[in-house]
């Protein structure tokens, strides 16, 4: 059983979330009271946990003997400094807070973003949440397993096999893939592996969470250009298991190798699906696999005669490049795909704002034109 620590300055909240975070994989029953930075760090060191989860506000409770004038970012910074000195203790740090605190305090505090591996909302652990513990807790377990694997791999003798080891690829397959720009973020200027939490952040943020060399299920469906129902039906007949990513964090995030998908596509068809409209892709898939396939429909043009390319970053529906805008992504590595948002989500606006998505400067005029209703919706497909 792994050990977890949950930090919260509010006694009742701490007890509730210690219970909600605990499952058969991680035990969060230890109590650490954030009465002062020094005592907190010392208590954590004594427990030597596999993961620390913390509320954002640790300074909300006033107590005459407490010196708790710090928030989660401050604690994370001190812990990360400690991990640099003792890399074997490096563990995932997770933020668990209310929507209000995340939106008004954590989001603007850009300096602490890189200190946490991931953040969740407290209500996502509640029974009435559409996400729920059954989604969140396996991800925490995956982070713990991922850090253990990373620590093993970074302490290996040969930095050249670090990336294939983390990604669970044979060296030959990795050499074929050669993701341009990955190696420099995993190894330092001396060619030695970075610290575990740095490697974890690079793999998690740039490889697992961001489409590029991997695809999530929505991205896979977008490439096939199908409705959810048809995609699920197709998955019953076509085994995409061979495309599955089995590297670090894969037990919490279901991903598929893009290069294996492309190989599957080349083996299955004489044409590239990406050169066909959604309608034609569905016909081809139906014919090939004898499964009823309905094409996806563009949310903007309401047509299936579109060249679906990716899942919209906001609504996750199959989207065509010509009816989408690019997200502003200043830290894009060469192997990563720039995320895009469909015109429909740009028009609706609400979810984009909630997700704090900024649009690439070159597409700002398009956003204005959509919102001012100056951009006409197409009436027919493009050849």
């Amino acid at each position, binding site marked *: 059983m792994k050990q977890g620590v949950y930090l919260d300055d509010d006694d009742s909240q701490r007890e509730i979330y210690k219970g909600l975070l605990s499952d058969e994989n991680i035990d969060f029953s230890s109590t650490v009271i954030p009465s002062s930075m020094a005592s907190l760090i010392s208590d954590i060191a004594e427990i030597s946990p596999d993961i620390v989860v913390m509320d954002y506000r640790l300074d909300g409770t006033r107590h005459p003997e407490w010196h708790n004038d710090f928030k989660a970012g401050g604690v994370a910074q001190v812990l990360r400094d400690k991990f640099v000195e003792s890399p074997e203790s490096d563990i995932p740090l997770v933020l668990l807070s209310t929507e209000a605190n995340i939106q008004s305090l954590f989001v603007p505090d850009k300096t602490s973003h890189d200190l946490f591996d991931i953040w969740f909302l407290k209500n996502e652990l509640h029974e009435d949440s559409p996400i729920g513990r059954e989604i969140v807790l396996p991800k925490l377990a995956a982070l713990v397993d991922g850090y253990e694997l990373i620590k093993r791999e970074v302490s290996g003798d040969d930095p050249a096999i670090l990336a294939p080891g983390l990604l669970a690829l044979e060296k030959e397959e990795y050499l074929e893939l050669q993701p341009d720009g990955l190696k420099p973020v995993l190894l330092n200027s001396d060619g030695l592996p970075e610290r575990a939490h740095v490697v974890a952040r690079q793999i998690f943020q740039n490889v697992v969470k961001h489409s590029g060399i991997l695809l999530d299920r929505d991205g896979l469906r977008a490439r096939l250009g199908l409705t959810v129902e048809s995609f699920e039906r197709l998955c019953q007949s076509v085994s995409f298991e061979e495309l599955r990513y089995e590297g670090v964090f894969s037990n919490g995030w279901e991903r598929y190798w893009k290069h294996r998908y492309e190989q599957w596509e080349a083996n299955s068809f004489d044409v590239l699906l990406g*050169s066909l409209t959604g309608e034609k892709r569905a016909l081809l898939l139906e014919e090939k696999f004898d499964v009823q396939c309905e094409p996806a429909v563009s949310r903007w043009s309401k047509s299936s005669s579109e060249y679906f390319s990716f899942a919209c970053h906001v609504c996750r529906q199959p989207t065509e490049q010509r009816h989408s805008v690019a997200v502003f*992504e200043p830290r894009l590595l060469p192997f990563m795909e720039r995320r*895009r948002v469909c015109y429909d989500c740009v028009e609706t606006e609400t979810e984009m704002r909630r997700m704090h998505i900024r649009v690439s400067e070159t597409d700002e005029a398009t956003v204005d034109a959509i919102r001012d209703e100056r951009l006409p919706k197409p009436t027919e497909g493009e050849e």
Partner: protein
Amino acid sequence: MIETVVPSNKEMAAALKRTATILSELHILSPEGNGSLGGAADRLLREPEKHWACNTTKSQPITFEKRTDRSKQSFQPTIGVDRIEVRENGEELPFVKWDISLLLKFDNGTAHCPRWHFDLGNPDQEGPKTHLQYGGYKHPNNPGLGPSVREPRWNTAPMDIILLCETVSANFFHEIWERSLRRDTSWTEIVRMSQRLCYPHYLRTLYSSLNSSGSGTHLDHCWNRQ
């Protein structure tokens, strides 16, 4: 006379990846265009060494960073490759298929989008064997915006993806091209490899028509024979 040199699939794939890296670093190629070129290179690696084909998908063409015209209208240069197929063919044209286009895709849905389309004339088609044609973009909101006449088919030397990327860079990103590309050795090496693939056959035809003491013009030499 200079011989045509057909690069292997691996050489062309490496050149496409290098093109993607160089043009992305200079903010000429968009991230989507970088992905598209990378995808084309990956597919090339699965092709035979000497007789290979290369393409991009319609869902992800090679897009460049956006530019603005004189009226401050924003457009995106976009290269689409339906298919380029090559083989070593001695003195003959090394292209079995050559179908590549450049589109200036305007953000404004009502604007005319210029498109130049390069391909090989069909054997029964009147026109130069390797030609450039204007138009071919079906405007979603106004099909009438496209040209109603297909001709002329301009007699031209073939251009592959890299040569067309060079043209886009020099014309639409002129300052960057002048400052960072025009004399950059690693870039010019890539371009020269494509020149050795695309130009020698055309050059031989031109040379032969200029040298010819008999009748016939260069266009006549290049015209599709029945």
